[in-house]
């Protein structure tokens, strides 16, 4: 009994091992997620390209900024305008 106990302590510790191929499997899943993300982005970029064609030039939106600033009171600005 003592011998068997000693031999079990003397044996190299058993460490859990991953099943063969599991690392590849994980790499494949990661790769798949990356591809899916890229393909989603392709769809979004194609949608955005289509929508950009309907936009006005930036000057229209710069005018909106200028109009808003001019029409809004500002305690930090109002006193200092020349």
């Amino acid at each position, binding site marked *: 009994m003592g011998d068997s106990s000693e031999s079990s302590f003397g044996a190299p510790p058993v460490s859990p091992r991953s099943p063969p191929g599991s690392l590849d499997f994980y790499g494949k899943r990661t790769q*798949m997620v990356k591809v899916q*993300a*890229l393909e989603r982005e392709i769809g979004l970029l194609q949608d955005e390209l289509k929508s950009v064609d309907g936009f006005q030039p930036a*000057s229209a939106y*710069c005018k909106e900024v200028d109009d*808003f600033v001019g029409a809004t009171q500002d*305690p*930090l600005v109002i006193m200092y305008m020349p």
Partner: protein
Amino acid sequence: MSVAELKERHAAATETVNNLRERLRQRRQQLLDTDVAGYARSQGRSPVTFGPTDLVCCRTLQGHTGKVYSLDWTPERNRIVSASQDGRLIVWNALTSQKTHAIKLPCAWVMTCAFSPTGQSVACGGLDSMCSIFNLNSPTDRDGNLPVSKPLSGHKGYVSCCQYVPDEDIHIITSSGDQTCILWDITTGLRTSVFGGEFQSGHTADVLSVSINGQNSRMFVSGSCDGTARLWDTRVASRAVRTFHGHEGDVNTVKFFPDGNRFGTGSDDGTCRLFDIRTGHQLQVYYQQHGDGEVPHVTSIAFSTSGRLLFAGYTNGDCYVWDTLLARVVLNLGSLQNSHEGRISCLGLSADGSALCTGSWDTNLKRVLTLMGKVKISEFLLNIVLDMADLGIRRAQEGDLNPKTGKAISHIHESSQSQVHPSQCSPALCYIRKILLYFNPKVVVWETIML
């Protein structure tokens, strides 16, 4: 499908994405017929002028013993909450400089704080990956500390920024180093929506800042270490409404323009930019040339009530007041007497738009940090920070034990904050760039002298 086939598909998709991005960039470029400054000049707009005594530092709020990381004004009363590396939130009466609350945090490594719309509670977040809500009316515990009234747990990385949804005390939006933003229901403590993440279209690096549209609280923008800002609709978490490109560094701070149709950004590339949310047009770049070649990063921004002024804090201690229409610097608060001695880490305008509060770090203790390569961020960062607390900023060395794996480190990845581009950083290094430790226990309130 084999791994080889997947790699082929990945390469093809990457090429398609790059081509589409380039086409989009060119198409957008064609639409940029002017910028705000060009338009304002064409309309004959006069510049805003400030004398050196027009905007003065009226008081310094002293009480923190560590660098000030974040601050926020309460909407209806003149109170400020500030968060510091000393592990406390302090609630100040901005008119009298008195402290009304000093809240000792369960986790000292706080990065952000926010006042609730009613002023009844404050929130904070940091390296513990939690957003903690404190009810200011709660009784203190036996040790005199205000207890956390609601912990919001669910982020897988540090909480970098938080903002309550306006007009409510029950919803808050947080951003995180886990690349996501979360809308929380404070009543239940549960996540209502997660924006971004592995299986959704969102940021591809740490999210550093959020800003909710004051005109439409369903919309918010986020800024990230991936160099982009994204617009989100809280009703549609699965994808960003729009992605805004242009910056060449981390987007550290985002803030909605007062009209709700645009927002500003501040970045490690030293620029602030103004973007239109409906079109994605970049309407203006705000950049001041520096002679010494070192480009200070923009850490925090705020617009005045009309949007005419843009306050921008920089890592070199400058705090520029930009004339947004003419894209000129009107004043540098950092050059005035009684200003901060180090980087401006945070700033905010009072609700009535008449006062500005700035918070600072002290940059005198700038260090170069050394980190190892691929390590999961959350546990590791806590170890690094604990090392910092005990030993100052500790440099990892070959042979040190990796706290994650328990194995000796065989390779050290070394870089400094200024040398590393975000795209070259591991997530951990990317983050450490943000938490170089400095100390300057000052919060300064600026306000106009009403004549």
